[in-house]
């Protein structure tokens, strides 16, 4: 009687101040989001652990967060700006590179950490219960922290070159969220698939490696001939990086269709990614 009632209500309900939890096959718990909310502290602790652990036993410590994008910026500036002599749209080439590197770095580290997160926390998945979404979400949080630190570098650069932002900078957070959504959506797919097919451990880094060149990180978008534009913008990061440059550097020309596509694409991957993740999360502990 008790069980049929609880099944009817589909999960958790309250009898005499205690929750009754019904576990059966294929019944996803209705209060999934409440469950995640209850585990929010774990989310922060996992992120905190990853941040704390990453630069232990290194000499320069957390400075790596700054050193890495700076060095990449230098290399890209030299290779694309000096050697290849690509056009910079009348702005310092290093600034052009950095405004591309900033979202790209966030995207690529969030995506690759996200996709590896479940496998590298396998011992947790097989020993404790918690909403599995916590694990990839915590890596996104780590990515955001790195992103924030890199942003401080951006501020320094902007003032160094005397580029004072316009009102367009107000849309900066919007593009940040867009990047996060895109990375997280793809990351959820990759994470859930990696549990079953370890091939994604190789596939994701490979695509990210190609992605640096397929996205306008080291060059400006207007380098791409008009006839290739539609295909080029199928890469959502093109629209996103465009958006960042537009908002930070106040560029005049922006291909809004590309940005819109990036928005739709990101929303789609997030929704489908969440669905796929939730569908497969019940079996993670069995196959990991």
């Amino acid at each position, binding site marked *: 009687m008790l069980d049929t009632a609880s099944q009817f209500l589909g999960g958790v309900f309250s009898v005499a101040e205690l929750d009754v939890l019904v576990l059966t096959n294929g019944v996803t718990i209705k209060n999934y989001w409440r469950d995640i909310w209850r585990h929010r502290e774990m989310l922060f602790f996992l992120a905190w652990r990853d941040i*704390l652990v990453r630069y232990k036993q290194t000499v320069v410590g957390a400075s790596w967060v700054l050193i890495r994008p700076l060095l990449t910026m230098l290399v890209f500036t030299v290779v694309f700006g000096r050697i290849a002599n690509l056009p910079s749209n009348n702005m310092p080439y290093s600034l052009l590179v950095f405004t591309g590197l900033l979202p790209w770095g966030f995207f690529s580290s969030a995506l690759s950490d996200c996709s590896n997160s479940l496998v590298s926390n396998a011992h947790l998945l097989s020993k404790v*219960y918690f909403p599995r979404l916590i694990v990839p979400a915590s890596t996104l949080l780590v990515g955001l922290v790195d992103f924030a630190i890199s942003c401080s570098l951006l501020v320094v650069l902007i003032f160094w070159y005397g580029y004072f932002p316009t009102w367009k900078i107000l849309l900066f957070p919007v593009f940040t969220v867009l990047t996060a959504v895109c990375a997280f959506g793809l990351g959820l797919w990759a994470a859930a698939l990696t549990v079953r097919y370890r091939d994604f451990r190789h596939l994701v880094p490979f695509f990210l490696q190609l992605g640096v060149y397929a996205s306008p990180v080291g060059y400006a978008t207007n380098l791409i001939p008009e006839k290739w534009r539609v295909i080029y913008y199928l890469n959502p990061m093109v629209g996103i990086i465009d958006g960042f440059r537009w908002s930070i550097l106040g560029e005049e020309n922006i291909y809004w269709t590309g940005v819109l596509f990036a928005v739709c694409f990101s929303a789609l991957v997030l929704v489908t990614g969440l669905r796929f993740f939730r569908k497969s999360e*019940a079996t993670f502990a069995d196959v990991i």
Partner: protein
Amino acid sequence: MSIAIDVENLSKRYVISHLNKGARSIREVVGGYFSKFSGTESHTPIDDAESSGSSTTEEFWALRDVSFQVAEGERIAVIGGNGAGKSTLLKILSRITEPTAGQVSIRGKVASLLEVGTGFHPELSGRENIYLNGAILGMPRREIQRKFDQIVSFSGVEKFIDTPVKFYSSGMYVRLAFSVSAWLDPDILIVDEVLSVGDQAFQKKCAERMKELTGDGRTVIFVSHSMAAVKSMCERALYLKNGRVISFSPVEAAATEYIRTVMMETEQRQWHCERFEVVQGVSEDYQENSEYCTCTEGWIENESANQTSLLRMDQNFKIRVSYELKKDLDMEVVPNFHFYTEDGARFFISFPEHPAPQLKGKYIAACEVPAFLMNVGRFSVMPVLSSYKLSNTVLFAVPNALRFEVVEMPNSDSRRHGWSGDIPGLARPRLDWAITSA
């Protein structure tokens, strides 16, 4: 009393892939489809494995139709050998994995300790790990803060609390790890053999803390191979074997049953042996004074004169041993049967009223064991023929020759008076009683 955990027809199936344990790669999956659709067989080891068996996967039921109920505040043990399904059951109860069929209803907040120190990171300090581990086990941060000092002092690693745990000795590490778990405060606690950590003193501390934790009305599910721990902590035991419930009974009975089964499985020869034959030079441990006599065979016979090793407590049974005297003897010979308990302690020795015949010939010594002498349990018999005139009194002895089990049929003991539990002890004699008004 209300039910804390209600498990109904719970089953869990695992699909074992024979190609590659656990992780799969796309090549296998795609390749598998490809060869199915194209119908061509390539000659990779994968396909060979596929063609030799009809399928590449095998089903394995880790749990099958398991049903039981745990009342609120009850402490139960889950026992069984390796692969019995204990861990799978715990994993389902603690929501790590989903059941394949059936359902579980759990009332109250669950904490499960399937391992101590889950999520401990070697690079982090003891302090940091306490917070991390606590969060993973579902302790709110404020609660950890409140219990922090207790946790640290319990673990006894105060001095090193800010040292990365990778520099800890394994003992310190485990002590700290257990300490965090020891301060959880759930309604239902699921514990998987985490007690056996640390040195003796710490183990004692753990056991005490566990007792404390498991007291005050908490529902506990405890998995262990240690029957002593199980008996001291739990009231009832769920005995699993090959994913099925063998019994769910008071812990004493279940533990005995488990030990018995384990002994049966580990011992090469089975316990039950209703008949023996002496084969010269082959029968181990057999002793005889072959100048005078030899033992040939022996058996156990129930009331209906059937040879059996499964005997009813409420019926008489006979032990019969046949032997041969090789010549006329000028001394008294006395057959005597030694009865042993299951663990090898001598229960009693029985002698006949009169000595046996002394003339050359074949004899059968029979001894009738009355009903209600032996309690439920397992016993063995060593038939002996002795002569107390010789310096070596043993004419023959067949150690561990017959092994039998006494069972109690339902309602066969009129003196139970409604008690349905265990009646421990080796014997259950029906003694004369008189209760008179004083």
